[in-house]
């Protein structure tokens, strides 16, 4: 290990150290000054961001090619840091309200984030596994942080058991891939597969097993069953982070692996991806349709969104489209991050201390009570559906386009038709807010409101310059893939 190695993971290492320091510092921070914890977390995140910008320009490898710093990782890192920032901002008021204002919360969040950062630059299966555990274990704890609340404990246990199960699949897949290619490094594996030295049966089996394991993380159908329960049981501020961060990290691994290492496997895997994407879109939207609990509703909307992103994988073997489809997947992830955090922050405002107040009916009258938050929520719902003048529209637009370009017209048409279901979900929410009378009790705080309004402004504002944004994403990728 030399200086370059450290340098290649500098932002992530800094974040990790900061998280550990915070864990120590938390012991000495008195209860009265509890607000210091989130402030420290924000300082850490901003500092990491500065480091990222400072050294993000160049692509480099470290630890003998095990980690790779490039445009892809820098983009995802920024996305993770953004979601970390939003997650920290919306937490304090909520945690205080439901009585779990513990300083460990923020350290755990930062630890999980550093796992995600590592995932974005992983160039070796061992690192993928390490990152997966580093991001998951703090999340298991966070899901159960509302102890002794039974739902929270149940969520933690469920998440832990199924997460471990998924890790098992990932490990099994790694073993197969190692058996097939005699390596765990991405570039070595790619060379082995291309030169024909690899045992293709093993490689395909390994790739499929990895897909299952990571499919759990991104909650793709049929590996999604844990998500609604866990999302519902975990404290909402954790869920908001989990729904975006864990999903994006899973996609980070999938994107790098499949588009970089396995393009030659596409004849045998593309169909599977298309099928999973189709299933995820259909099931996610259908089940979102019948939910009456907002947390579950958002969980299923998130599942459906994963389905749309998975569309980008269907044409992954086609080199002409691969770069574009990767860019559209990242673009959609950005749109999803902003939309999802915004929607969750509105939900946080609505939730009472006893975790009631988040049924669909409790939205009634929100339009009159706080026109601004209701308008923001409308924007998020429209963005999930993909109605123009929101970022979600362009996200879907780009994804459908790559699907069509890659020859998967049926998948695009299916995606469009399931958007109709999504529209029904969205308009059900909008209808409650505006057309039904009621007087919901709100627990707004400055920061949650800020997150909601900031996200809404971004979702609408950025939709006027999708090209610049897309170009940014594509440019970020040029260095990497």
């Amino acid at each position, binding site marked *: 290990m030399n200086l370059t190695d450290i340098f290649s993971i500098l932002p992530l290492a800094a974040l990790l150290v900061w998280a550990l320091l915070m864990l120590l510092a938390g012991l000495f921070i008195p209860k009265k000054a509890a607000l210091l914890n989130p402030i420290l977390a924000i300082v850490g995140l901003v500092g990491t961001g500065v480091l990222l910008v400072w050294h993000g320009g160049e692509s480099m490898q470290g630890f003998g090619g095990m980690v790779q710093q490039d445009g892809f990782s820098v983009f995802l890192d920024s996305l993770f840091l953004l979601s970390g920032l939003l997650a920290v901002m919306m937490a304090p008021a909520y945690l205080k309200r439901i009585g779990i204002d513990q300083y460990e919360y923020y350290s755990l969040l930062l630890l999980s984030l550093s796992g995600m950062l590592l995932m974005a630059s992983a160039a070796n299966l061992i690192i993928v596994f390490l990152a997966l555990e580093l991001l998951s274990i703090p999340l298991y704890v966070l899901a159960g942080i509302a102890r002794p609340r039974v739902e929270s404990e149940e969520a933690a246990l469920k998440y832990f058991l199924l997460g471990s199960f998924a890790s098992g699949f990932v490990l099994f897949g790694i073993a197969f891939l190692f058996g097939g290619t005699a390596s765990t490094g991405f570039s070595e594996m790619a060379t082995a597969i291309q030169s024909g030295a690899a045992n293709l049966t093993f490689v395909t089996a390994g790739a499929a097993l990895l897909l299952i394991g990571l499919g759990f993380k991104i909650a793709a159908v049929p590996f999604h069953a844990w998500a609604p329960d866990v999302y519902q049981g975990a404290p909402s501020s954790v869920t908001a982070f989990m729904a975006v961060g864990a999903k994006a990290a899973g996609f980070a691994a999938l994107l790098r692996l499949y588009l970089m290492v396995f393009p030659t496997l596409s004849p045998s895997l593309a169909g599977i991806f298309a099928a999973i994407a189709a299933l995820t879109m259909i099931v996610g939207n259908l089940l979102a349709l019948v939910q009456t609990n907002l947390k579950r509703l958002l969980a299923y909307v998130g599942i459906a969104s994963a389905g749309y992103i998975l569309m980008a994988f269907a044409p992954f073997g086609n080199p002409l489209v691969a770069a574009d489809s990767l860019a559209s997947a990242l673009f959609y992830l950005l749109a999803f991050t902003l939309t999802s955090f915004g929607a969750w922050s509105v939900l946080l405002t609505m939730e009472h201390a006893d975790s009631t107040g988040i049924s669909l009916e409790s939205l009634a009258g929100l339009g009159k009570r706080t026109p601004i938050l209701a308008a923001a929520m409308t924007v998020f719902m429209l963005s999930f559906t993909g109605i*123009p003048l929101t970022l979600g529209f362009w996200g879907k*637009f780009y994804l*459908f386009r790559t699907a*069509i370009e890659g020859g998967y017209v049926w998948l*695009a048409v299916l995606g469009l038709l399931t958007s109709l279901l999504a*529209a*029904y979900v969205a308009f059900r929410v909008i*209808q409650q807010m505006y*057309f039904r009378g009621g007087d919901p009790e709100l627990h707004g705080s400055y920061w949650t409101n800020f997150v909601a309004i900031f996200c809404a402004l971004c979702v609408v504002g950025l939709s006027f310059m999708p090209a610049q944004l897309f170009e940014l994403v594509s440019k970020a990728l040029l260095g990497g893939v």
Partner: protein
Amino acid sequence: MILGMNPLLLVTLFPLVGVFILLLLRPQWKNALRWTALVASLLTFGLSLAVLSLFHSADGGIQMELDLPWLTLAGSPIAFHLGIDGLSILLVLLTTFLTPIAILSSWKAIEDKVRGFMIFFLLLETGMLGVFLTLDMAVFYIFWEFTLIPMYFLIGLWGGEKRLYAAIKFVLYTLSGSLLMLAGILWLGLHAGTFDMTILTAANSLSLTQQLWLFAAFGLAFAIKVPMWPLHSWLPDAHTEAPTAASIILAGVLLKMGAYGFLRFNLPLFPQATIKLAPWLGTIAVIGIIYGALVAYRQKDAKRLVAYSSVSHLGFVMLGLFALDAQGISGAILQMVNHGLSTGALFLIVGFLYERRHTRELDAFGGLWKVMPVLGSLALIVTLSSMGLPGLNGFVGEFSILLGAFGSTAYLTPWIAGVATVGVILAAVYLLHFFQKLFLGPVLHEENAALKDLSVREIAMLAPMLVLIFWIGLYPKPFFTLMTPAVEKLLGILQAASVVMH
């Protein structure tokens, strides 16, 4: 150029100036809000008249073009490309003409959340103008979808009893079609390497099979909007539940977006498919004419009756479009305007009655002519215009359409036009029934005996519509002159396609 800006851009965006001012005003200042919206829409109308004065009617091509590049999609540029031609100019004028009238009609009817109402109304106007003026498929789609949101809220927040059901039905019906259109737009745009309508029209390399698929993808979206039978079932609900002002715009302009879509996209882009499918679409149009008329006759609610009459009237428009000859298509365009005027006025009249009696049941009225002679006589003119009486606007459009349909080679048989003629008779049946139930006979109900006749504001709304009803009826030439070169150009494309096919 007006004020150094492209006139089309100015017309499209001007309502947004009104929106901006409305946002600055306080919600309690109801009259200030109303006046702001009215003045903004009147100025927009003024701007559209300026566009008309700059328009060269002898030129069949696109005029006053504005082409601002926006983004590139896999090598295919998407641009904010505006332009106007003979196919769209009348619809633009119709939109800017009807919007102030609709805003005036809400003066007394909307007391609750006035600011929101006016904002949504002006947003809707921008959306509709964008639909008619955009020449880029992707931007067209954005405007097309955008019109949904204000209309959804107008129905859902200010509508009648079953407004929730009607609003969501309206959105889901329209979306289901337009999502497939998005797939079509993406496919076509990537296939041709451009989303620009002018380039796509000029260089068409689609095979017949491709054209048929794309025709279906686009056509479904438009057919739902028109609406063509059997996709019409959202319309009676939406119309009945919408507030009067929204009904006027819904019938007057929003439905025309569907017919315009066929005219702008399906006919020039997929000409061979159009020729192949014309007899089928003509048949469906005729079924719509007859079906709409029969169902209209059976309605007990005045607004539902007018709504079903729209199904019938729009059937005529579609019949004219797919006749694929000069009379048919020009008649169809003119009939779009006519329908906007007559049906808009009919909704206005039903709205006047509803404001006075809070019911729309035909049985609750009768003998109103004695009580409200001014409304009675104006309503008679409007009813006759909708029926197609010679000398009034409806006749000119329907006559031209039927002439086109009889002479059409695309329909292969004169029977389609023949059966459609029955629709004219049926229109007389249900419209006279409508008029008789409301205005003729003795005053059946005590409450009706003391109803006030029209106020100056109400007459001011109907008067400009009546002027146009007579103008088009007596001297339609200037209207035809505006569209003829563009229609000729469209026919040229269709003829070239039919030569290739045979």
